[in-house]
Structures are given as C-alpha cells and as structure tokens.
C-alpha cells in the first residue's frame, strides 16, 4: 500500500517535469517571437530589447526553463503574453467553474451509473440489453455535440434553461445550478454509460461467485448480497473507472465550456491556443496535471481501503 503510494508520488515528479518541459521547449520552435508580436511592427528596437529582457527572452532556453520552474515553485506562473494578467490569478478565478462541472458530472455519472448497473445486473435481460446499447451509444456520442443538441432542445426550443453563461454560486445558488444542468449532463453522459457497464459486469460476476452462494445458502438475504457484497466486490474496478472518467472530464470540459460559453479553464485554454499565449496554456496544463495526480492518488488510497490484499502490502 505505502509502496504503491510512494511509486505514485515518485512518478508525479517526472510527470510535472514532462508537462512543463513539453510546453516550454516546444515553444522555442515557434516561428516568430512573442515580443515582436506583442509590440507590433511599429515598435523601436529599444522597446523591443527592453521587452525581451523583461520577458527574459534574451537568455538561453534552458535558463528560461529553470527560471520558470523556480517561478512555479514560488507560485509564480508568469503573465499572459496577450493580456498581461497574472496566470496564477486567472487560473484561480476560473478553476471553480471547471471543478463544478467536472465534479458535478462525475457525481451524476456515479449515481445514475451505479443505479442502472445494479438494476440491469439483477432485473432481467431487457434492461441489460438497454444498458449495452446505451453504453455503446453513450460512449460514441461526442460530448460537444450532445451539448449542442441539449441546448437546441431545452434552451432554444423549450426555453426551459439558459443556453449559455455562468452565475457564481455566491450570487445565486439557484441560477448557478440552472446554468450547470445542461453542461453537466453533456459531460456526464459517456461516464454514466461506462459506469453502468462496469457495475453491471462487476455485480453479475460477483453474484455468480461461490462466496455469494455460500452466504445465500447460509440465509443472508438477497438485497444484502447485492448491495453489500456484490457492489463492494465491483468497487475496485468502479474506483478505477471513476478516476479515468474524472481525468477524461478534464478534456471533455474544454469542449463543453465552449459550447455553453462558461468562463472555466477550458475556454481559457482554447482562447490561449488561438493566440499562441504559451504561459497561459502552460498554466492550464500544469493545473490539469496537478488535478490528475491528486485524483490518481485518491484512487490508489481507495484501492487500499477497499481491498485488504492491497492494504497488506
């Protein structure tokens, strides 16, 4: 167990280095020069040199990289080349939007997925068949398209929910929730499908196993066998996919935020990509990597809590 965690933590160091290095060194391949593009063609050579020094662009790439690593360790993620805003501050402002979406989407996927999965494992073939089809289709639907279709139906045609925009939770919890309903569904759909399938396979496998028969023959009622023993035995694979779904939602949220015009990290990343704002992209990548590392750690800890064999190691 401890070895597992130690390995994860050890791996997270090269992981962070890789992410920062990829984004950093690749930018040296950019044709053109951020200082030049920031100043425009009319700037004097003095202005240009001054800005290059201010941005440390006159130093060798490796020194720039080490400087930026040092900055990151001090919580300084640099400034946007385009707007000049502090990247760390921008990330902090936008993080709650993305997290609401991702956490909300994962929770919805978890609840509905478990319910559908258990029901289809225990209640006959028709539902199982439906889950099969649903998980295939749900996995194949691109989430941004689902978002657009939902917006077309519920916002444009029925005018029940807002099509775009975000309201902070502090301002109005009700409007916050209304703004998030459609994006969360769009984000959760494929997760529901995946979780339902994993739970169904896990529960029906567990039900067929000897230990369930032993306990059933000893008088333990069926509901206890299903909701306690069978579900608990599928929890290891369940936790794995929840981790995967959460991490995949980081990518999914980029598209969904753009569909519903939500001011999160995803729309920030898209805007930054369109205008080659490398420090901002780097910042988003770093934030996503840290979130991924935390999620993976949580998944590993849950393995230990759920499986006594892992705990013993």
């Amino acid at each position: 167990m401890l070895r597992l965690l130690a390995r994860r933590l050890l791996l997270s160091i090269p992981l962070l280095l890789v992410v920062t290095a990829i984004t950093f060194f690749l930018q040296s391949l950019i044709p053109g020069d951020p200082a030049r593009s920031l100043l425009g063609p009319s700037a004097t050579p003095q202005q240009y040199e001054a800005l290059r020094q201010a941005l440390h662009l006159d130093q060798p790439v490796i020194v720039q990289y080490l400087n930026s690593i040092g900055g990151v360790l001090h919580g300084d993620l640099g400034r946007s080349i385009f707007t000049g805003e502090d990247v760390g501050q921008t990330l902090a402002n936008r993080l709650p939007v993305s997290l609401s979406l991702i956490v909300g989407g994962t929770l919805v996927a978890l609840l509905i997925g478990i319910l559908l999965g258990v029901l289809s494992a225990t209640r006959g073939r028709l539902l199982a068949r439906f889950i099969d089809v649903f998980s295939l289709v749900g996995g194949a639907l691109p989430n941004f398209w689902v978002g657009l279709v939902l917006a077309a139906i519920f916002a444009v045609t029925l005018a029940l929910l807002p099509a775009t925009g975000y309201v902070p939770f502090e301002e109005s919890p009700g409007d916050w929730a209304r703004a998030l309903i459609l994006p969360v569904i769009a984000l959760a759909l494929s997760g529901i499908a995946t979780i339902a399938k994993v739970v169904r396979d896990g529960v029906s496998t567990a039900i067929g196993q000897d230990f369930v028969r032993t306990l059933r023959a000893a008088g333990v009622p069926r509901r206890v066998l299903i909701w306690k023993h069978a579900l608990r035995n599928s929890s290891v694979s369940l936790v794995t996919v929840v981790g995967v779904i959460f991490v995949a939602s980081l990518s999914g949220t980029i598209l969904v935020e753009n569909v519903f015009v939500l001011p999160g990290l995803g729309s920030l990343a898209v805007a930054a990509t369109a205008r080659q704002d490398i420090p901002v992209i780097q910042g988003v990548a770093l934030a996503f990597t840290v979130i991924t590392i935390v999620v993976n750690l949580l998944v590993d800890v849950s393995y230990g809590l759920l499986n006594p064999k892992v705990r013993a190691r």
Partner: protein
Amino acid sequence: MTVAPISDGRVRTGRIRTNGLAVGALAFVALVVLAVALAPVLSPYGVNKQDLVRALEGPSASHVLGTDSLGRDVLSRLLWGGQPTLLGVLVALIVFVVVGVVLGVLAGTLGGWFDALVSGIADILMSLPGVVLIFAVLAIFNQELTPAMIALGLLGSGSLIRVVRATVIGVREELFVSAAIVSGLGPVRLMARHILPATFAPVIIQASLFAGAALAVQSGLGFLSLGVHPPDPTWGSIVGEAAANLAKAPWLLFVSGGTITLVSLALALVGDGLRDVSAARRRSDGGARTPVRPVAATRPAGAPAQEGVVLSVQQLEISFGERVVVRGVSFDLRPGEILGLVGESGSGKTISTLATLGLLPANASITGGRILIGSDDVTGADDRGFEGIRGRRVGLISQEPMVALDPLFTVGSQLMEVLRYSTSLPASQRRGRAIELLTRVHLPDPAGVLRKFPHELSGGMAQRVAIAVALAGDPELLIADEPTTALDVTVQAGILDLLRELRAERNLAVLFVTHDLAVVADICDRVIVMQNGAIVESGSAEELFANPQAAYTRELLASTPSLVRAS
C-alpha cells in the same frame, strides 16, 4: 476406446452470429472511408461553391443534405471535410498502434528494468492531461494538425502499452507456451507463433476504441476552429458552423454531428464484436446457451413426507431450456445419516443438490417432481420461500474453500452477518457465538481467526471456517458439494473426521457430493451412483462396494485406483 462425436457446427455458427453486427459496422466504416476518399468524384458541388440565394435550405433533390449559411452543399462539404478528419485519425492511430505494440511487447518480453521503465512511461502518458497538451502543440505548430495528431497517438498509447504488456506476460505463463518451449521452439518462433497472435485481438479492440476517441478529439478541435484552415471544412468545423445557426437550421446540427456519431458508433461496434469473438474462443464450449423457457413445475401428488425424513427428493427433473439434465431422481435422507451422491462430471449430482437449496443457475429450472425439506415443499420456491430454511435448517459447504468466502470482508464480519440472519441471537451475543463456532470446528486461536481476511487462511482453515458458517444457524441438514476435492489428502482426512464428529454430536444429516469413491467409502452410510442425470444404483455403502449391480458402478470401481492391493 471410442471417441464421442464432436458437434462441428456449434462453435462456427456462434462465431458468425456474434460477428454479424460487427461485420456490418466494419462495412459501414469502410464505405465512409471510401466515399471520403472519392470526394472529388462523388461530391455533387465544389467544396466551397457558394449560392447565397439558397442559404440554409433543408434537404431537397438538388441538395440531398441541404445547404449551409453560405448556401454551400452540405453533402459535398461532409465528403471533403472527411479527408482532413479521417487522415488525422489515421495518423494518430498509426502512432498509437506502433508505439503501443512495440513498447508493450518489448516490456512484456524483456522484463527487468526495461519493463519498469516502460511501465513508468505508460503511467505518465496515462496521467497527462491529453487535450491541453494537444492544444499546446497546436499553438506551437501554428495550428498544423499533423503534429497534434501525432501527439494524440503518443498520449493515447499508454493504455495500449499496458494492455499489450499484460497480454504478453499472461500468455507467457500459459501452459501451451511451456509446452511449445519443451517442443524446442526458439524465442523468435515462440513470439511469432504463440505470443504475437494472442495480442491481435486486444490490439484491434483497443485500436477501434482509440479511433473513436481520436475522431471525437479531432472533430472537437474542428468545432473549436483549431487546426482548421477556412474555408476548407472538417467534420468538426461543420458542427461549429451548424452551432452558429442553431435556431434557424437545427437539421444542420443533426446531419453533421450525426455523421461523426455514426462513424464513432460503428468503430465501437467493431471493437465490441471482436471482444465477444475472442472471449468465445477461450470458452471450452464455444456454443451459445439456449435461451431459458421457464416451465411451471408440475407437482404430482407424490408420497407425503415420511416421519423423520430431513430431505426428500421425489422424481426430480431439472432442465436447461429444452434440455433435460436430471430425470427421475428420488431419495430420502434421515437424521444422522451421511448419503453419498457419486458420479462423473455431467452426471447431474451437483445440479441436483443445488436444486434442493433453490440455488440453480438462472437458465436452469425444475421441470418435474418435488423436493421436501422436512415437511415443507420447496420445489421451485423463490428466495422468500427459502426464508427460514437456508441457514436455519440446511447449510452448504462447497468445493473451493478459498473462494467460498467474500475476499473483502473479515471472517468475523461474515460469520456475524450470517448469525444475524440465520439466528435470533441479539447483536451482543453474536461475537461469543462466532468464537464458539470456530472453536467447534477445531480452529486454534478463534478470536484471531475472526479478524483475518480469507486470503490469510490456508485451504484447510478456510474450509473449517466455511463449515462454521454453514453451522451458524444450527441446521439439521448439511449439503457438502465436493468439500475435500481441492484439499491435500492429509487435510482432507481432518475435514472428514470433523464431519463425522458433527454428525455424531448433532445427529446431523449430510448429503455428500463427490466423484471420489475412496472418499465415499470413508464417510458415507449410503450411496447413490448417478450417470447422465439419472440414478443407476443405490444402496448401503458396504453392499454397493462389495456387490455392485450396475455395469457402470462396476466400471467406476474398477477404474478407481487403490492404495491397497485388493485381497
């Protein structure tokens, strides 16, 4: 010796049926790829040919899929737009497969530090925030799609590396690989003949899944207008344009997004179909199970339960769908009696005993006769009908003690759970009772055993715990399904001694299922010999061994090796 006829058609027909949908899906993907490749020939209009007069028209004879906001033909744009889209997917897919297979095979074969390194790389790749890095690549390479798709393939390959590595390691542990090594195969032939072929199915499954994901990412980028060079379309950018005209022309959204969804669904179906086929080949009986047609249990007015009979099985018939697997089985079991049910695999001995506890598999049902526990008719009863019977009046011990207990709960938690449902003991007394039970089955340090998980027990200890679980509700009947088959012979002797002790002490009746005539001779008072679902002979153990009547019994006896030369 004659060989049983082998039904030839079973496996093949099963294979084709599971393939039907997948083959259709594959054909669909091929058709789309072909149409996109032939866009210059097939598209009815130029890709960017505008006709502003006819903007945002619905489907018509001249524009089969309608027109967009600039009056361009949507079908033509989908055909042309498919080219950068599918090409991008192809680039990502090639990188994914090459990197995944090469690194996975090498890691699985070489092992050691190289394996550790590659596994680390795979973990890192799987933990990277993929799409953001692709954005970075797009920004850096000035919206060029190819580097972004190479990055996508690379980032995705972590999962394939893991799958291929695990498959290679798994196959190398298979007995048939040992057999091939013993046959003199060198490493190259071993790889080509036995190991690489085993990775084909998982690689194709993963590749089809990845292709779907790559399509989603590719079209997502297009939707965000990244990696697009207007006015030339990609599938994603067409969705983006449709989104801008959502209120005026919703069908555009369905046509464009629907195309992406259908292709990605078809890819998923291909992978799914392949998974089924490869699973079918591994099964020993490739054929699909016949669907169950539940048949109402007929209950002839058989003899009433006799006084002092714990279990009475009368003219029992059990079927899997149309196939009758047990017929005309009758026997009575009295308190203090150990009755052996002997037969080879497929004789129906296990299925008959499971029926007495209502534990038949879902596709089997009782189609005739009846089962009485004491005086209660439990023929075809459901879980509710067995309430108060399972655990309280009948206990079960099964063949594999190591899997007979839930691996995720301690012995104590399971034993006390069973006590909660099969006795009326108050919660405060359950722990003491659990310790008593473990002491009764001769487990040393019962309090310590309560805290242990099943994997911390030896096979013999686990079987003793299973017996304690079966005894928790103080039943009068114990059903023992091959309880010593998985155990070493010295451990087996101890378990059989314990069962004899319990019988003497509680006047317990035991239905003992086994294939081993020597074990029968050791423990059973009476014996029933079964073959092909029917009883061929029954009688007292001494009688049956000394003077077997049925030819089958004689054959079984003659085939059972004996440690002692017959005198």
